């Protein structure tokens, strides 16, 4: 039951959201849109890793998801830091 749910409901939803987030990442008119889309892409990747660790019954993969979440958070912070800095320099 759980595996049916994961294979036929959760993973397709994640796949569709990856495609939608990538469309926003590709066309995003402003740089901040792209940054948010990249953050969303990594977050969906964390979801995929979590599903994979449930399917294979390997709880150690969840730590990889945690490190990826950390790196995504740091990259978003760094992007916003430099965006803010650039706007300050322009004015």
């Amino acid at each position, binding site marked *: 039951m759980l595996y049916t749910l994961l294979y036929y409901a959760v993973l397709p939803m994640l796949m569709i959201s990856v495609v939608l987030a990538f469309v926003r990442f590709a066309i995003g008119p402003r740089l901040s849109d792209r940054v948010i889309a990249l953050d969303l892409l990594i977050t969906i990747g964390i979801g995929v890793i979590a599903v994979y660790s449930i399917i294979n019954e390997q709880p*150690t*993969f969840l*730590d*990889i998801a*945690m*490190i990826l979440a*950390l*790196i995504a*958070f*740091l990259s978003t*912070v*760094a992007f*916003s*830091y*430099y965006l*803010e*800095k650039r706007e300050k320099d322009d004015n």
Partner: protein
Amino acid sequence: MNTIILRTASNYLLPLLLLFSVFILLRGHYLPGGGFVGGLVAAIAFVLHAFANGLDNTRTLLRIHPGYFMPLGLALSFLSGLAPILRTGRPFMSGLWFDGPLPAIGLIGSPLFFDIGVYFVVIGASLTIIFTITENA
């Protein structure tokens, strides 16, 4: 960047992330983890602190220049490689293990000290690179 939310969060995240990095370091060798990724997590903790509180505050928190971590770690790794030659006469970098497992940590040996050396080298190298980039940007 001067946001109170990020600064407060980074003050709580720094010790938590350092603890997590030590956990990853100790779990290595047989399971995912080890010195490299543990050092990266520790470096990320300090970089996050630098983004929230400014680079100078992180420098004073570290006390010493992060470049000094690199020779320290390399020396520790090299000594852990030399240990089996001196103790048993086996080749360089062959594993030397203690007899019984320690409580809560597990079986330790020369690979653990090699990993701790790698941990310090990775912290030193990545923090030196990122601090230099942040300074010049």
